[in-house]
């Protein structure tokens, strides 16, 4: 089966998209034409540069509407995503108790110079997120939340000491791809490390993180905006099963 899709504004198949951007030139007819050419270079048809606003000498902002030519077969789209049927806290605890038979140790941190703890706290703190309790409340999890601005090497040291079964990293600041730099650096250290108690499961999360990126960087999984703690717990358990050949 195929399901061809296009972007859509007014009528099916019209391909309409809205684009806005800045050009480093004064407002002028030439600037407008440059904006149109920018739009044309975007695989767009019939670009209408509807708005050109001066942002002071040397800069103008444009709004463009146009038709995108692209057509995609939606049935061929594969999303790289965490495949997990999230369980409840109770079911998670029961699974750990019955199948793993030991508490799992979770070490979490917001690394580098990133001080945004609200995301990792949402996953770890008792209170949780969006009506789901945080991992600290799980009977079968030992949670260590190291907080913000934890350097990669410290996180590794603490994880060894605490015998982490899973390491949870949060990255929020992304300007100049600092999150990718930090995450890459962590993976390098992680791989260089001898893990006396076995290689921990490695998760990363944050508003601009997704599973595809995480996997690409060498993490087991990545979690983006709106993640709830139980999804993370379920994932950790399933992954632990996989790694240790435990059957459900």
């Amino acid at each position, binding site marked *: 089966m195929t399901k061809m899709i296009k972007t*859509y*504004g*007014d*009528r*099916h198949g019209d391909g*309409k998209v*809205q684009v806005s951007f800045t050009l480093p030139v004064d407002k002028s007819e030439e600037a407008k034409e440059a904006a149109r050419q920018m739009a044309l270079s975007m695989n767009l048809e019939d670009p*209408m540069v*509807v*708005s050109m*606003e001066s942002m002071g000498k040397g800069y103008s902002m444009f*709004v463009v*509407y146009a038709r995108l030519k692209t057509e995609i077969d939606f049935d061929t789209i594969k999303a790289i995503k965490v495949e997990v049927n999230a369980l409840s806290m109770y079911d998670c605890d029961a699974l750990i108790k019955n199948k793993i038979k030991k508490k799992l140790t979770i070490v979490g941190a917001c690394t580098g110079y990133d001080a945004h703890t609200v995301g990792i706290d949402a996953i770890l703190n008792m209170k949780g997120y969006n009506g789901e309790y945080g991992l600290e409340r799980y009977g079968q999890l030992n949670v260590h939340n190291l907080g913000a601005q934890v350097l990669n090497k410290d996180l590794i040291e603490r994880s060894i000491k605490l015998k982490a079964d899973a390491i949870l990293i949060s990255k929020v600041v992304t300007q100049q791809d600092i999150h990718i730099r930090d995450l890459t650096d962590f993976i390098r250290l992680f791989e260089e490390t001898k893990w006396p108690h076995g290689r921990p499961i490695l998760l990363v999360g944050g508003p601009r993180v997704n599973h595809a990126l995480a996997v690409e960087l060498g993490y087991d999984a990545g979690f983006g905006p709106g993640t709830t703690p139980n999804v993370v717990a379920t994932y950790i358990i399933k992954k632990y099963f996989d790694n240790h050949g435990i059957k459900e």
Partner: protein
Amino acid sequence: MKKQLNLSKSKIQDCRKMAKKISAPVFNLIAEKSSWSIERATLRLYGVDDALKQSGLDYPLCNAVVDELRKSKMEMYGVTPFWMYARSKHTSLSANDLARVICEKPSDYFHYQVIENYPKLAKLAEKETREAINHLLKVRDDRYKLKRKLQDPAQVKNRPMLYLIVATGNIYDDVEQAKSAARSGGDVIAVIRSTAQSLLDYVPHGATTEGFGGTYATQKNFQIMRQALDEVSLELGRYIRLVNYSSGLCMSEIAAMAAQERLDFLLNDAMYGILFRDINMQRTLVDQHFSRLVITLSDIYINTGEDNYLTTADAYENGHQVLASQFINECFAENAHMNKDRMGLGHAFEMNPKIPNVFHWELARALMTREIFPEHPLKYMPSTKYKSTDIFYSHLMDAVFNLIGRMTGQGIQLLGMATEAIHTPYMMDRYMSVVNATYMFNGIGDIMEEMQLKKNGKIDKYAQKVLDDTHKLLKSMEKNGLYKSIEKGELAHVKRTIDGGKGYEGVFLKDKKYVNLFASILTKELPQIKKKLKSKEKVR
């Protein structure tokens, strides 16, 4: 809502009295004249809804029949006697087939004997008409039942209904857009008509997929959309209303179609066509009355078009034009037995955003309208003229509009679009607007209950001035009479003559043997019908 302004009650009463005087002569006109559109509407009410193929195009059967009536020079009697005569000859034919038969041999039906023998047909005519009326009541009842079963957005106190426009030109795209709008939170869907339609002297036929700046209003399109909205209403548990335009040269016909297809609101204004579409005065005035009888029967809300005064003239200066027109519209509607709570008088948030303290004046005007028309489901239109192609900025104008709409408890909030200055709304534009209104409504709530405007403060004074100016304008109109006032350009700065404008040829004098049972029955019985239904629709 508690009163915030100090508007003179006696001035308001005065205005109402003057409006009554101004509109009075129109009732003679209505008594004397009918129009092609009324006759075609009558046929539609008797069930004619098909079209003839004419050189590849669909020509509506009711137009064909009325054309024959005209050719036979018998229009002064109305189409009804001839229709009943044909009906008596072909009792088992469908209305459409009957119309076809008439058109095949018109001379068999359009002759003076029919008029002479009409008393014999009177009983049949009455029966047919009452059946047609009962059909409309059945449709009304269907709506009522659905509303009872579902949540009715109109019942949420002080929260305007979210009214959204679809206008793709293609009814099937419209359906998709309308469903998405409803699912995002819209309460009312208006299908905007194509640019050309208001000046057509017929209603196009069938489902249509081509239109410019809107989609043709056709009976089939009404049906398709109402069905789609019923589906989505049931899905959402919320009754979604449908709107179209009973306006232009086919005002009465569209009212008939809307009644049959269970539309919920109709853009319907006693003077809009005259002023803004250059339609002949008499044509519009007789048509509006017939259309409003049908509208009242079918419990449809009207939306009047006073917002248009403000898209052409300066909104800060011309508030009184709007208010004067509202008083007159109210009067005409009351004459068609319409209740105040069905009169969606129109107005708009259209002041130049650069005016200092512009929100004060917008608030004043909106509040004033609310206080003068406390029971009316006011229709509040967004900024359009001053919208910019900078969509981010335009989105903010709608935010303030939404704020004021909710603060002043407007009945119907026509959601503005960030892309107003660019194109007819895309699906995502509409979504953004619903998000906008939802956020603003929730946040601002009943804030007016928490405060009192300063007595004779600047806001209060501005509202008083608009009322004063209105009083003056109505006084002058009272002096000149409605026709002369319009001839002199007292409304919207537009001058129209009594026999100028489009569609004048379609107005004719009624003979004293003229028959239109819908007009006569509804004029007489609407008050009782309403009374009966009121208790029924309430207790059930």
